């Protein structure tokens, strides 16, 4: 079996546009210097690489100030900056039961330091009723933090509705856009999102090791950095500068990765986010349709391409998710992720804890043939399991 099908785009998108790879090669070949630490030509060019990427990120998310775009190594780091920053000395946060451990673990760490948080329950399809957020807000709630779409079921969350609750109550909202940035429009200005955490290596078509935080105006004053150090600015002072982006960007950044991220975002602009989303919706629809008719397959989540990202979670009767993933990989060259997807709370919500599910996540470069091959493979495994079980 020479054919391979990569269906793990919700973890890391692959392949990348060739422009992403070329931008990284070009940075290393022709620039390669430390951004903003020296005044020479290539150091300035490295700095331009960063500011161009900030401009691209700000443009993509409707942020008016590109200096409020902070680069981090991934969305997890961005979420930690916000959660640890706002709950460093107590207080209360509100979240949903569909969160990834990138939210749940920092919240639990904050709880161990004296803060607390409440979790709005979601339906078995992973859907949130925004009123369940409103009802758990307390007088000392300092933060509402939630995912824009579940990494387990793809369920798209009512972020705009929660944003209006947050605005009414005067509580900062932090959105985890790991699964949506680049594929579902986000406008931080129009939606009044104070903290938008994103990652570069999924639907933004950047490399691993890139991500960031988009800060609304004035929100930087609410939080302290996770890390302190050299910024190339105000070097005569031994305390951290308070201006953006330097306050939150200590040490030499991943400029080569950010060069790739900038090219990835440019690819979205050239291709059109609509075209990307439309293609992914078609693939999701075909997966839902094809898998839905296989005996023994159970699909989780909204089962509606309009209400989910390109993520389909399933179980096959009589086979664990890890056995299924192994059989798909070994026998059919299909790469997918099994287990709990770092989101035990989400799996509890949909009723698949601790067994987990098999998650199929197509991407923009996935083809209709890839999906047909996958549906046929799972159908064949279902038959094999059924006949095997009889013997």
């Amino acid at each position, binding site marked *: 079996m020479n054919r391979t099908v990569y269906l793990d785009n919700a973890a890391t998108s692959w392949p990348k546009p060739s422009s992403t790879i070329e931008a990284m090669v070009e940075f290393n070949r022709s620039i390669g210097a430390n951004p903003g*630490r020296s005044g020479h030509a290539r150091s300035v060019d490295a700095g331009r690489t960063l500011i161009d990427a900030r401009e691209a990120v700000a443009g993509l998310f409707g942020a008016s100030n590109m200096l409020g775009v902070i680069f981090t190594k991934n969305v997890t780091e961005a979420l930690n900056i916000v959660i640890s920053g706002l709950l460093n000395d107590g207080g209360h946060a509100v979240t949903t039961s569909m969160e990834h451990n990138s939210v749940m673990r920092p919240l639990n760490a904050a709880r161990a330091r004296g803060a607390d948080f409440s979790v709005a329950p979601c339906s078995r399809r992973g859907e949130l009723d925004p009123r369940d957020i409103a009802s758990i807000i307390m007088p000392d709630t300092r933060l509402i933090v939630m995912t824009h779409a579940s990494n387990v079921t793809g369920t798209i969350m009512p972020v705009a509705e929660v944003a209006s609750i947050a605005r009414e109550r005067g509580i900062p909202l932090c959105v985890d856009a790991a699964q949506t940035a680049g594929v579902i429009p986000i406008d931080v200005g129009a939606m009044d999102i104070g903290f938008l955490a994103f990652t570069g290596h999924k639907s933004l078509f950047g490399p691993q090791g890139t991500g960031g935080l988009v800060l609304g105006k004035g929100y930087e004053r609410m939080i302290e950095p996770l890390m302190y150090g050299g910024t190339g600015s105000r070097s005569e002072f031994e305390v951290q500068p308070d201006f*953006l982006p330097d306050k939150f960007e200590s040490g030499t950044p991943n400029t080569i990765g950010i060069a790739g991220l900038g090219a990835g975002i440019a690819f979205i602009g050239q291709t059109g986010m609509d075209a990307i989303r439309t293609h992914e919706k078609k693939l999701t629809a075909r997966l839902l349709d094809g898998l839905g008719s296989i005996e023994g397959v159970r699909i989780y989540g909204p089962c509606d391409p309009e209400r989910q990202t390109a993520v389909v979670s399933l179980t096959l009767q009589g086979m664990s998710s890890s056995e299924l993933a192994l059989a798909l990989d070994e026998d059919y060259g299909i790469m997918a992720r099994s287990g709990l997807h770092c989101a035990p709370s989400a799996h509890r919500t949909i009723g698949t804890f601790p067994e987990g599910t098999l998650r199929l996540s197509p991407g923009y470069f996935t083809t209709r043939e890839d999906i047909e091959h996958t549906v046929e493979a799972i159908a064949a495994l279902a038959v094999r399991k059924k006949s095997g079980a009889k013997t």
Partner: protein
Amino acid sequence: MSAAEYCVILFDSVSSTLLAEKFLKKAAILHKVIPVPRHISSDCGVCIRFSPDLRDRVEQALTGSVEFREICTL
């Protein structure tokens, strides 16, 4: 640029400097990004040099868009 005289505009950070560069390019104002002259600041970063006769245009291009620390004539 008149002999031995030019202006430099200083910013808080390299990011601000390079953001300002974007606005100056857009306004087609001749400039150059240079290391901050050691005798005006101990910062290790960069600043933007331009001809003194462009001072008003530079200020106009950046006001409301990029905060700057000061403009020095050297």
